[in-house]
């Protein structure tokens, strides 16, 4: 019997080596596998290269990993946010290396790694600083820059439900980088709200087939659901709305 489920987040992240390249899913907080990141912090691997769209929000998840100085380099599209103070501090202190990649090139390069593409010509970034030094080519009257795949040793992905074969479905825009990162890493580790019986996921609706998944761990239902139905009652960071008049989320321009 194939059973990719593991009983704890500690088991899920076991064996991640110092110096590993790790993809972490999520766009901001949506889809960020916070429990797996916490487990990685506890596990202790260091000198990591992280691939994520952002560079951490607030003091939790990826930001907490950064705060522990366990990350040597981060490859992302949008590090600077209103709540990226942990990264900002490390960057200004020269304690973290940054490789900035336009978001669509980041996504497509990750997809290319999973799909066995050697390199591809992208129109994004041509003529800008972020394509400096890249091979350019005119194809059908348009100029493209050559982009290479981004692969990883490990992907940490936050999905919604899984079965024991590792088939995954996501929830709303928390899907974001999960499916492409799952395919681009040697070892893909997934946290979900719930493991469901094999056959419970509609094969028409599986977003990540289990072939891309190595380990799955259930971390319990997200706080804004109740028995699978949306219940609300939280702020954008998922914190319970305990009192009226609690401070509103900043509306600074992030991406």
């Amino acid at each position, binding site marked *: 019997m194939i059973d990719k489920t593991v009983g704890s987040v500690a088991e899920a992240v076991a064996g991640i080596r110092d110096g590993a390249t790790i993809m972490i899913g999520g766009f901001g907080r949506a889809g960020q596998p916070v429990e797996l990141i916490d487990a990685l912090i506890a596990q202790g691997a260091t000198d990591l290269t992280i691939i994520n769209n952002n560079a951490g929000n607030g003091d939790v998840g990826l930001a907490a990993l950064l705060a522990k100085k366990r990350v040597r380099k981060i490859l992302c599209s949008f590090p600077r946010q209103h709540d990226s103070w942990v990264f900002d501090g490390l960057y200004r202190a020269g304690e973290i290396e940054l490789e900035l990649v336009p*978001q*669509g090139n980041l996504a497509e390069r990750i997809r290319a790694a999973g799909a066995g593409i050697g390199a591809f010509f992208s129109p994004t970034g041509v*003529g800008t600083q972020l394509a400096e030094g890249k091979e350019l080519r005119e194809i059908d009257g348009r100029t493209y820059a050559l982009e290479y795949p981004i692969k990883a040793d490990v992907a940490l992905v936050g999905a919604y439900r899984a079965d024991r074969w590792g088939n995954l479905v996501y929830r709303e825009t928390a*899907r974001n980088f999960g499916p492409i990162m799952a395919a681009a890493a040697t070892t893909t580790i997934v946290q979900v709200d719930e493991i469901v019986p094999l056959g419970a996921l509609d094969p028409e609706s599986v977003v990540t087939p289990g072939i891309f998944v190595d380990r799955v761990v259930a971390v319990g239902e997200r706080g804004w659901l109740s028995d699978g139905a949306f219940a609300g009652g939280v702020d954008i960071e998922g914190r319970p709305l305990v009192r009226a008049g609690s401070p509103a989320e900043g509306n600074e321009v992030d991406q």
Partner: protein
Amino acid sequence: MSATDSAPSATRITREQLAARIAQDIPEGSYVNLGIGAPTLVADYLPQDQEIILHTENGMLGMGPSPATGAVDPDLINAGKQPVTALPGSAYFHHADSFGMMRGGHLDVCVLGAFQVSQAGDLANWSTGAPGAIPAVGGAMDLAIGAKNVYVMTDLLTKTGESKLVEACTYPLTGVSCVTRVYTDHAVFDVTPEGFAVREAFGDNTIELLAELTGLELKPAETPGIPEEN
């Protein structure tokens, strides 16, 4: 063109009026991405009786307005990481599919902010190149080169009075020859092979005044007021 102290005499519309003006040029059935910041205001002015489908690059088509407090869903956000809702007919997809949609030219319109737009249609909106600043680009470069019509929404002048419409951008570029039209608080400009053309000047603004404010040679648009086909 006489040199006058033009600022007091220039008509400026508000950001909300500008958002409404842009909304006018978006036909029913369009697929539209509204960039983070001011462009998101355009959504409030899209006609309620028409269907215009909003794309958010983090993986959704059919985005609806913000939810009520108490109904915020942290899994359902836009590219600015603000809570949104899903309309009937919406669809979710992953990031590679979402950016493929943009890069493949499937969006009819995107509306972006700008630091500078050159008369060749070059856009600078992601970095001032200031030393010590932390660079961040997000999806700006993909949007700039992706949509069929790239509209810029911006004040014509910076806070210190310099024109954001320029002969050549001095800030780091977001995209080359990508902007279709610039909607400013003073006027609407088309990007043409011969440089900026004034599609619509607000209030009493004249081409002469706009030329003076921007320091650029300007001409009237050939078919002013008629939106281009998407």
